[in-house]
């Protein structure tokens, strides 16, 4: 339970948002060329980090726009919010 600062609407309760999971998983450019291992990696394998994680959120009960969040999953503190297409902040690598 925490607040998320939507880049379009401002700070709202987390229950207004839906989690889109890990961010920056690149959709395969040539799906027909992919091996089973690569499909598994893309579809199922997740970093599932305890600590600082880059993730996607959707303001489902608000503007319905997608954006990225940097969050510490060990204490749910949000460290940064940035829009889709923007480069992830480098100081959290």
């Amino acid at each position: 339970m925490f607040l998320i600062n939507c880049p379009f609407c401002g700070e709202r309760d987390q229950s207004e948002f839906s989690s889109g999971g890990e961010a920056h998983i690149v959709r395969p450019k040539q799906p027909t060329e992919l091996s089973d291992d690569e499909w598994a990696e893309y579809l199922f394998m997740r970093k599932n980090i305890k600590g600082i994680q880059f993730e996607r959120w959707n303001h489902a009960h608000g503007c319905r726009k997608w954006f990225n969040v940097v969050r510490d999953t060990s204490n749910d503190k949000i460290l940064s919010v940035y829009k889709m297409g923007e480069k992830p902040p480098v100081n959290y690598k």
Partner: protein
Amino acid sequence: MKNKYSVFSLIKNALSQHENWQQAWGNPEPKKEYEAIIVGGGGHGLATAYYLAKKHNLKNIAVLEKGWIGGGNTGRNTTIIRSNYLWDASAGLYDHALKIWENLSQELNYNVMFSQRGVMNLAHNLQDVRDLKRRTHANRLNGIDAVWLNTEEVKKFCPIINTSPNIRYPVLGGTLQRRAGTARHDAVAWGYARGASEMGVDIIQNCEVKGIKRNGDRVEGLETTKGFIKTNKIGVVAAGHSSVIANMAGLKLPLESKPLQALVSEPVKPIIDTVVMSNAVHAYVSQSDKGELVIGAGTDSYVSYTQRGSHNIVEETLKAILELYPIFSRMKMLRQWGGIVDICPDASPIISKTNIKGLYFNCGWGTGGFKATPGSGDLFAHTIANDEPHKLNAAFNLNRFISGDLVDEHGAAAVAH
């Protein structure tokens, strides 16, 4: 057995004010080397060590636990035990566990308070009715007891349920597995710990794994907060923290760890003598032997390791509980907590070898691992000892996420998630 529990030992110890009971399990310092090390001292991990010692004659085993045994999800779940899963592979797995539960107290000489009070799953719409009826047929073909109850029979079996057709999600019927029920979760961990300890298993608490030492494609040992421990076989049973351990070996797992909540009410006189689950409105309830209502809520939608959950999840569950059981409207809730559950994309567990020799994973139990504790331990022990899965856990390998041969129990098997 040096200290067999019986009515006589109870009387004898009562005469000395229960001050002379022996320690139930040892508290050793880690040795330099073990034949096999189990990472995670919850029910599944302790059961794995117990069966490795008992059935596979391994003499030199350790269980490493970063906190205290049974302090993770084993002590945080709502203790429901059932085996009415849809698919053959799941039915085989969970009924194997249920059959062990039926004699577990005798086997361990430890009362795990297994109570076959039945588990009822409610249907609230036409699709629920079709799905649940289909599941009872599938269960019976697999030799698992299951019956369909219509609304009147549901009311008769559990009279406090509101079966009015005018509620938002009316009860259209339900399934009942009579062999299902509950057990005392702490006792399961303690019983296995005592049994394992007696066969020489070292249970090492307050010992956190910090790294996995690899030599090429095989494991050589573990870096821990109590120093380096050498071993050729590592069985990881770390529930919500499985991905963290996997990461130490350079592995990625198909898991997401999320908080799952439960809560208990103040204790009251016996009011509900069974377990009632409702998938559609996400509410399930039973009553503990102390008299508390034990209520299971849902998972949060996001990855988190905080062992607490969001208030809105609890609120949704309690709304559903109150509509189904108006009699509980003035109950006060006593405690609420969260556990971190590791969820697989197909809502089925992983009991598997990995591509690293000597490294085994038992994880992905998600929101419903407690019921499988004895079976999971038995099959994981088999997998570790023989370096091959048992036929009952062969389907639950890691490779299924590459081959696509998933055991898709999401929504299909009354999995409350």
